[in-house]
């Protein structure tokens, strides 16, 4: 079957992009060294290995983030029955940003400086999740009233501008040091995580994926509309609520760690649809998850500007890649 070939091909590309991502950067490391590192014990003290470990962490982050945001996008597009939905476009990421902005810049008012580093990073994750939940809840409520595809998008845009207005007000009153911290966070960075953060991210990712998989069958019937889905025994309300929570939490956690990453969630499900010409969401889910990882690894590799010592903000690269896809989709719809 051609689909079996396709999945093997996609998995091989994931593996090669991953290795490429680790080996490229401001310092060139030969492939053999990377395999040496991966296959031997990890305690060797060598500056090259330190770099590899740094890059390995970053690449794992890229895989989890790319994959996570993409499946969130796929579920949002199907729940809203809107091909242009995604965590970034509908303002869920902005909600996270608002949460983080309140946390970083408003923290002067309510944090105790004696709190440890871990607790701080966890509470940042928490406030990010709360922001995402808040905005998503608002969008869900409006989308029940407004069925029109474009209206929901515009409402999402409005929520984003509302959130960024509040962020602006906060920035205006905050110290320059905290403002700088926040601005750097908004650029997006895959390299700020340590192993502890990765474990938390991985835990949330695996749980979300499991919950998503449980929703796949009812999501398939939602393709032909809520009434039909309900007549086939699907509780649309429960399904909506589950997707709402999982998407908010996963987007919230991801955004807290790496900043708001643009367009991945919107664009990757469409790439998956182009690759496997099916509407079966169970198949699309698998490909979206893998392609999401590949795309973000590629974006990150480009962001490192191989051979130079500079690196671009990851958000700039994903926008360069994602915005044209959105325009293409709108043109195709006409």
């Amino acid at each position, binding site marked *: 079957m051609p689909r079996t070939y396709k999945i093997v091909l996609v998995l091989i590309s994931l593996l090669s992009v991953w290795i490429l991502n680790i080996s490229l950067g401001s310092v060139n490391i030969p492939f053999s060294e990377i395999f040496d590192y991966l296959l031997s014990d990890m305690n060797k003290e060598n500056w090259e290995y330190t770099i590899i470990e740094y890059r390995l962490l970053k690449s794992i982050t890229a895989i989890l983030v790319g994959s996570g945001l993409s499946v969130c996008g796929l579920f949002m597009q199907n729940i809203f*029955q*809107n091909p242009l939905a995604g965590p970034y476009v509908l303002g869920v990421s902005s909600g996270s940003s608002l949460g983080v902005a309140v946390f970083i810049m408003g923290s002067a008012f309510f944090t105790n400086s004696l709190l440890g580093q871990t607790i701080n990073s966890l509470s940042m994750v928490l406030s990010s999740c709360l922001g995402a939940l808040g905005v998503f809840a608002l969008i869900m409520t409006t989308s029940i009233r407004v069925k029109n595809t474009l209206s929901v998008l515009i409402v999402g845009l409005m929520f984003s501008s509302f959130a960024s207005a509040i962020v602006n007000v906060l920035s205006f009153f905050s110290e320059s040091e905290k403002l700088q911290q926040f601005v750097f966070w908004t650029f997006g960075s895959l390299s700020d995580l340590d192993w502890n953060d990765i474990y938390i991210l991985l835990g949330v990712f695996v749980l979300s994926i499991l919950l998503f*998989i*449980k929703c*796949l*069958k009812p999501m*398939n*019937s939602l*393709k*032909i*509309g809520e*009434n*039909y889905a*309900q*007549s*086939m*025994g*699907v509780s649309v309300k429960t399904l909506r609520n589950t997707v709402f929570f999982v998407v908010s939490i996963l987007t919230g956690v991801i955004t807290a760690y790496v900043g708001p990453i643009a367009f991945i969630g919107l664009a990757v499900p469409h790439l998956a649809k182009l690759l496997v010409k*099916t*509407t*079966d969401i*169970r198949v699309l889910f698998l490909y979206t998850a893998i392609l999401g990882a590949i795309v973000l690894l590629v974006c990150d590799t480009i962001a490192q500007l191989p051979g130079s010592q500079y690196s671009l903000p990851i958000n700039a690269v994903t926008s360069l890649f994602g915005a044209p896809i959105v325009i293409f989709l709108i043109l195709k719809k006409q």
Partner: protein
Amino acid sequence: MSILKLTNLDIGYKEENVLVKDININIVNNKLICLLGCNGAGKSTLLKTISKLMKPINGKVELSGNDIFLKKNNNISKRISIVLTDKIYESNMTVYELVSLGRQPYTDWFGNIRDEDRLKILESLAITDSIDLKDKKVSELSDGQAQKVWISRALAQDTDIILLDEPTSHLDFRNKIKIFNLLKNIVLTTDKTVIISTHEVNLALKIAEELWLIRNDKMIEGKVDKLIDNEDISGFVDSEYLLFNKELKQFIFKKD
């Protein structure tokens, strides 16, 4: 054993605005029923209430003796299937994919299609004479073909009752007759009950065994001949241009 029983049923969206009051119906053996009424009379509302897509304002809906609005009878997906006029988001799917969705109430948690499901899907496509369409995309079908495919999906769901909301509204006259005949044949060859809401009064008079007429928030039901004899039909279409002809059992235009 009663297939469908409606008791003192009041339907509508809001309590202060009841569309149809006090509906009492008991269907004992399978038949073709046409539901007639003006725009906004409550035809769709009635179908949605029977299929549990909305709650009644008062009264009971029972399928094989089970009240469908009780918690323990939560899932009626193996008893009632529907064909609606809703537009769909994913028109890129193939006919086969669409019809196979009808098997969802019978598949496992992941929705795996087994051999017996495949057989049922092909059988459902065969009944509506749509096997040739199975690899086409739903968006490529003509309105007549699409309607047959949606009926196949409902057949694949393998239920006692199929409800259709204005299934012929976009079709040309030839296709209207085709769809009605197809539904009639389904009732004759299987043990299913088919309930169609429609504006095609003349076709309904020809093909249905029983009519449900909604008029001024009341529902009158009965065999076609009985309703003709009672003059319920002739009073039903209130138009200065039309006349009911008892011999032909249809409405005809008045002479100028």
